[in-house]
């Protein structure tokens, strides 16, 4: 399951529901209503508003619990017991990635920083989709933890505009199948 496809589906459904609501009301907007009908519409509208409030509350509370229960960003100020460590330094307009080969199946800790301006360290999977990312900021080292599941060549692109050489600021990481796996 590709996360981006799930997100796109949720967005289309959400925007589609909003559109349907508007289309329904626009189709009714040109019709007149007498006083009794107006009062009935007002009552129905209040009931629907409560349901909408409840539905939004359930969706947002559920999404908060589901997405934050396991916090998606690694602790930044405590040592991580991770054996695969990769140091990443961005500089206009290249990446130093040491080492540039890792293995699947166990987490990799990327320690990402910059020597000059802000860069975006994004790892693109072999299928062309972003696997994960973090900002590379001068004066700070951000720890990105990611576990690769598929071996292959992963492209690194800069995702924070950094000047004329922003597009060609690329590199790659080789991911090998876990030797013990």
């Amino acid at each position, binding site marked *: 399951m590709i996360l981006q496809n799930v*997100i796109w589906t949720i967005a289309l459904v959400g925007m589609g529901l909003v559109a349907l609501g508007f289309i329904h009301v626009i189709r009714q907007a040109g019709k007149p209503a007498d006083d009794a009908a107006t009062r009935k519409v007002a009552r129905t509208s209040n009931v629907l*508003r409560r349901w*909408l409030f409840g539905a939004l509350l359930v969706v*947002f509370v559920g999404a908060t619990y589901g997405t934050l229960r396991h916090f998606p960003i690694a602790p930044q100020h405590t040592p991580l017991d991770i054996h695969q460590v990769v140091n990443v330094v961005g500089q206009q307009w290249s990446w130093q990635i040491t080492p540039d080969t890792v293995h699947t199946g166990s987490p990799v800790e990327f320690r990402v920083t910059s020597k000059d301006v802000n860069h975006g360290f994004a790892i693109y999977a072999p299928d062309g989709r972003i696997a994960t990312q973090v900002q590379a900021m001068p*004066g700070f080292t951000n720890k990105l933890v990611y576990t690769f599941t598929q071996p292959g060549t992963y492209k690194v692109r800069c995702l924070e505009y950094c000047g004329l050489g922003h*597009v060609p600021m690329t590199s790659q990481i080789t991911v090998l199948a876990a030797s013990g796996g």
Partner: protein
Amino acid sequence: MAALTMYPENERLEGGNRIVFNLYIISAVALFVLMMLLGLTMRMTQATWLAVPADLFYRILSMHGAGMVGTAALATTAVMWFFLRKYVQLHLWAFITNYVMFLLGALCIIFAIFIDGYGALWTFLYPLPVHGMGLWSPNSAALFMLGYLLLGVGMLVFYLDAAAAIIKVHGNLGRALGLQWLFGGTIDPDHPKTVVASTMVIIANVLGILAGAVVLVMSLVNIFYPEMALNALVAKTLIYWFGHMYINATIYMGVIAVYELLPRYSHKPSPISRPFLWSWASSTLFVIIVFPHHLLMDYAEPRWFAVMGQLVSYGAGFPVFLVTMYGALTNIYRSNMRWTMPSRLMILSLFGWAAGIVPAILDGTIRINLVMHNTQWVPGHFHFYLLLGVLPMALALMFHVIGHRADAPPNNAADRLGFPVYLIGGLIFVLAFLDAGHLSVARRMATHLPEWTATDKIGSIGAMLVVLGMLYFAIRITAGLLKAPARRDPDGGMANTAD
């Protein structure tokens, strides 16, 4: 009923008011067309239909960003001024000062970009402005920042004049927001929604502009005294605090047009209510503290900061969906509405705002931001609620005003053609961006991979339609504003031309 008079006497534009309002609007629509042409140029470059060198592309991107944000602020400030002056005593000199400062700031920005080569985008993210690597000089960055300061000072003058006027009538900003009625009491039915919205904008955007001023001055000091380095994280935090509030203020200024005008076109009053007051009170807080959702990939920020960004992004959806959008739909439901340009544009604006919030809220989720941050998903959602939300809000007022001037409802055959061209073009344009984000196409890149250009081409076609629609709107509005005002009714009111 006075509230439903289509063209109330106290909205009449005469003398200096008319000249300055026309200057604001004609400048804004002309700039919107020009900035859209720059946007189209970039999309066509990414689609490989145009060959624009990378250095020029990034200068165009810088101009498009700064120009669109500034122009949206200019247009929606005119919306706020147009309606707020009915309820409090605004000074025309403050409104003029904002316009003059806008022009001076815009000149600095245009000169910095097209003469001096500045290409560090509208976000001037420290320390990129001083790392042009030969493409631009620190002096050009300083000129760009000076332009921003001038824009900010102009807005502050307008806001402070408006704040003083509101306080004079309502005692303090809290009472103007209606906080005294949140938990009980009889709400004054004549308390203007425009005053509530304007107060919220003043509180939030004055804070935002001050944050911007602080980081601009810090950056200027760094340019001339490089040994005084800044903390990059603090600078970025301030920049996004400023940037987020500045552009969001345009939505909250623009929506005043909907609150004021929609009941006139639907012939149904929309009285002030407790949910409305709660909505604006909570939005005041949310818009001030929601900006961390721009910094979710900066792991050096504290964890609570990122969590707050996500939670407040979710919370901000409630007022929009449950009060503004739902209230407007309830208002027009079975209202015997007659569709003219202002009413079409108002409903489009609410749809653009509400639908555009869906991908925006998704992007405010940390887990999702990990794969969507700085992809074209981001311009996808903000163009959704700016192009199809904020701009139609301002256009609705403009068409309403020219309807008054022409003494006829703005609803001719060309209008009925121009509207769907803009709407369909806009939808194609924003959905192409969102689809590109779903395919992990990076934003802000002068050249794209061959596999990315399909969405660029579709987006370019959408952009062409949007430019065509906006060009028509700009000509129509400019011609309409320059016409003589409509005749005064013998009984003292103005002709109601929308029935």
